C-alpha cells in the first residue's frame, strides 16, 4: 500500500482553515478491494454559518460508504469539515456539497451522508445525500435505502 500522497496525517504543524477548502481532502488505497464493506465516519462537531443571518449552525454528520480503490483519510476529512466553519451554507447545500466532494475524491461504490442538524426555530433539518456507481448491486442498494428512509419517524432533539 502506498501512502506517499498523505501529507496531513502526522504533520506537527497542522494549519486550520475556516473557509471551505475541498483540496484538503486526501486518500489512501483500499487494500481489500475484493470485499464490500461499510466505512462509517461520524462527525459530531460539524459547524457552519447560516448564509442569511450569519448565525452558527451545528450538526452531526454521519458519512457511510462502501470503498472502491480510494478511501478518505480521516484527518484530512476533519480539517475539510472544519473548513466549513465560516462558510455560509444552508443545511441541504452542506450535505450535498460534502457528498459530491467525497464522490469526486474517492469514486466509491456507494456513499451516503445524513446531516443531523440541531434545531433552529423549533425545526431540525436532516438532509440525506446518496450515490451509487451505476453497478446493479449498488444501484439496488441506493434505491432500497432511499425508498425506506424515515419510514418510522421518531421525535428528535
Amino acid at each position: 500500500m502506498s501512502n506517499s500522497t498523505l501529507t496531513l496525517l502526522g504533520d506537527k504543524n497542522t494549519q486550520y482553515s475556516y473557509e471551505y477548502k475541498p483540496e484538503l481532502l486526501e486518500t489512501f488505497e483500499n487494500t481489500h478491494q475484493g470485499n464490500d464493506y461499510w466505512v462509517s465516519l461520524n462527525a459530531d462537531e460539524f459547524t457552519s454559518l447560516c448564509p442569511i443571518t450569519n448565525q452558527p449552525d451545528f450538526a452531526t454528520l454521519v458519512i457511510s460508504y462502501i470503498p472502491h480503490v480510494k478511501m478518505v483519510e480521516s484527518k484530512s476529512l476533519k480539517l475539510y469539515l472544519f473548513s466549513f466553519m465560516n462558510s455560509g451554507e444552508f443545511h441541504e447545500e452542506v450535505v450535498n456539497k460534502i457528498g459530491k466532494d467525497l464522490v469526486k475524491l474517492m469514486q466509491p461504490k456507494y456513499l451516503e451522508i445524513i446531516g443531523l442538524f440541531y434545531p433552529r426555530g423549533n425545526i431540525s433539518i436532516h438532509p440525506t445525500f446518496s450515490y451509487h456507481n451505476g453497478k446493479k448491486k449498488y444501484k439496488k442498494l441506493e434505491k432500497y435505502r432511499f425508498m425506506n428512509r424515515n419510514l418510522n419517524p421518531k421525535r428528535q432533539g
Partner: protein
Amino acid sequence: MRSIEVIAGTKVQYLSHELLFLALSGQPYRGTVAIAFESIGESFNLLDFKVYLTSLRSQTFTAENIAHEIYQKIQSHIKTKDLGIIIDLSSRGGIQQRLAFGADFALVKKETIFQVG
C-alpha cells in the same frame, strides 16, 4: 450584555450545547456550557448572551480558562448570588475535559438535546 429584571431568589440555570472556540493550535473546540446562579434581582438578556457565545467562535483560549472567561463576562454585567459555570469539552486525544469555576451546582441533564444517541 443587557440585564433583565428577575424576582430575587429565583434559581436560574442555562445550558447550551453550542459552545465553540479556538484552541491555541487553531483547532476548534466544541463543548457544553452550563450556568447556574440565584437571582438577586436580575439576569442577562438571552439574545445578548447568544451573541456573546457566538463571538467566542473566533477567539482563542487555553481550554482550561474558558469557564473563567464566561464567569467573568457574566460577573461584569449582572449581579448574582452563587454563580457557577461548568464546561464539558468534547474529547481531544481520547481525553475529555470538564472545567468549573465559581459555585458548585448539579448539572441539568436534558437527554434529548443531542440527536444521535
